[in-house]
C-alpha cells in the first residue's frame, strides 16, 4: 500500500545512523525537497549511497555541508571539496566505487543476488580486499550487494499506486535504488490517479515504492 505523505511526515521515518540511497547525478534527478527536510529534521551520522556527493549548497551536497554524513559510497566526489578533505583526514570513510559497479551492487541487492562479477577494477586498487573469480579464462571481481535502509528518490510523475516515470537524464540511479532499500520515499513532480499512466510507459513498478511526496519543480 503506497502512502501519500508530506515531506515532513515521510522524513520523520528516518533515524540517525541509517544508510540512505539518494537518486541523482550531479544534482540532476535529486530529490531536493526531501534532502531539505532531512536537514531540517536534524538526521545525522548517515551513510550515503549516491553517484556523487554533489556540490556545496546543492541537493545531496547539503548533507555534506551540514556534516550529516559518516560514510559515503560514491563514484565521484570532485564536486564537493569537503568530501575529499574529510576522506584525506580520515574524518569520514569514503568508498569510491566505479559508477557501473555502484549501480550493479544496488541492483544485486534489489534483485536478490549474492553479488555480481565485473571486469571493472581488475588490476587496480578497486580490487583490494575483493575476491577475483575466473570465468572462461577471464578475471572478474566479486562485487557484493549494497542495500539501504531508506531510498530518497525523484520522479517526474507517479500514480497513486507508486508507479513512476522519470524524465530524460533525471532517471540515472533512481530506478535501481528503488529496488534496493527497505523503505522507498519518492518525491514526484506530479501525482496522478491510477490508470492515468499507460502501464507500458512505467519505468519503476509501484511494487518497489512505499511513500510518495508531492513536490519538485517541473520543466518541459
Amino acid at each position, binding site marked *: 500500500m503506497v502512502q501519500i505523505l508530506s515531506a515532513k511526515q515521510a522524513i520523520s521515518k528516518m533515524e540517525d545512523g541509517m544508510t540512505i540511497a539518494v537518486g541523482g*547525478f*550531479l*544534482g*540532476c*534527478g535529486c530529490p531536493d525537497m526531501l534532502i531539505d527536510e532531512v536537514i531540517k529534521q536534524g538526521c545525522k551520522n548517515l551513510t550515503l549511497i549516491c*553517484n*556523487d556527493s554533489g556540490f556545496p549548497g546543492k541537493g545531496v551536497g547539503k548533507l555534506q555541508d551540514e556534516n550529516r554524513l559518516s560514510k559515503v559510497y*560514491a*563514484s*565521484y*566526489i*570532485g*564536486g564537493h*571539496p569537503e568530501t*575529499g*578533505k574529510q*576522506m*584525506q583526514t580520515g574524518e569520514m570513510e569514503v568508498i*569510491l566505487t*566505479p*559508477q*557501473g*559497479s*555502484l*549501480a*550493479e551492487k*544496488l*541492483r544485486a541487492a534489489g534483485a536478490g543476488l549474492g553479488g555480481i562479477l*565485473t*571486469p*571493472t*577494477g*581488475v*588490476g*587496480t*586498487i*578497486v580490487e583490494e580486499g575483493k575476491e577475483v573469480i575466473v570465468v572462461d579464462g577471464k578475471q572478474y571481481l566479486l562485487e557484493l550487494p549494497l542495500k539501504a535502509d531508506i531510498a530518497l528518490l525523484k520522479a*517526474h510523475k507517479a500514480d497513486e499506486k507508486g508507479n513512476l516515470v*522519470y*524524465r*530524460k*537524464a*533525471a*532517471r*540515472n*540511479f*533512481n*530506478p*535501481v535504488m528503488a529496488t534496493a532499500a527497505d523503505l522507498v520515499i519518492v518525491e514526484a513532480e506530479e501525482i496522478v490517479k491510477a490508470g492515468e499512466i499507460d502501464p507500458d510507459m512505467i*519505468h519503476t513498478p509501484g511494487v518497489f515504492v512505499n511513500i510518495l511526496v508531492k513536490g519538485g*519543480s517541473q*520543466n*518541459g
Partner: protein
Amino acid sequence: MDKKEARIMIAKRIARELVGGTVVNLGIGMPTLCASYVPKDIDVMFQSENGFIGIGPAPKAEEMDKDCVNAGGSPVTILPGGCCFDSSTSFGIIRGGHIHTTVLGALQVDQDGNLANWMVPGKMVPGMGGAMDLVVGAGRVIIAMEHLAKDGSTKILKKCNLPLTAKNEVDLIVTDMAVMEVTKDGLVLKEIAPGITVEEVVNSTEADLIIFTNIETISV
C-alpha cells in the same frame, strides 16, 4: 602550433577514427572536442553515461532543461533517435561491449596499454566516475592528451607508476606530438605532428617506441 591549435589537431585526428553507425562515449575535456569534428559522412551517436544516447548541442538559455545534462552536469540536448535509460542499463551498454569507441584523457599511459587517469596519491581524489567501466568495456580505447605533463615530464612510460584505471586496455594514443598504437609487439609510433621530428618524440617518451616504417605527418 599553440596549445589551442594542438587540442584541435588531436580532436580532429581522433574524430577520423570514429566508425559510422556506432555509439561512442567521449570523456570530459579534450575528448568532448572530438564531437565537433566528426566527418559529415560519418553517422555516430554519442552516449552520455548518466543515461542517454544521442547527445546534441548545448541548448539556448531559454530552452535549458534541468533534466537534460551530460555526464559533466552541463546542459545538453537529445537528438532525434536518442533514447534515455537508467544507470544500470547505461553501464550494461558500456561493459557489455556495445560502445564501439571511448575517448578519454590520461595522466599516464604505458607501452602495455595500461592507463592511469583517476588519482594521484596524496592529492585530492575526485573519484573514478565511469572511467574504469568505460576503459574495460568499450571496444576501442583512444587516449587524447598532451605528450608531456605540466612539469615537462613524459606521460608515456614503460610502466605507469600512478594507480591504474585499467590494465592493457588502451588501443591508440593521440598527443600534440604523435599518434601511437598499442600492439602485441609494443608501442608503435605511426604519425608525428607537423614540425615535430621522430627524434623529438622519442626523447619525449620513456616507453620503448617501435618506429613505423611508413611514418606520416598527422593530417587533419
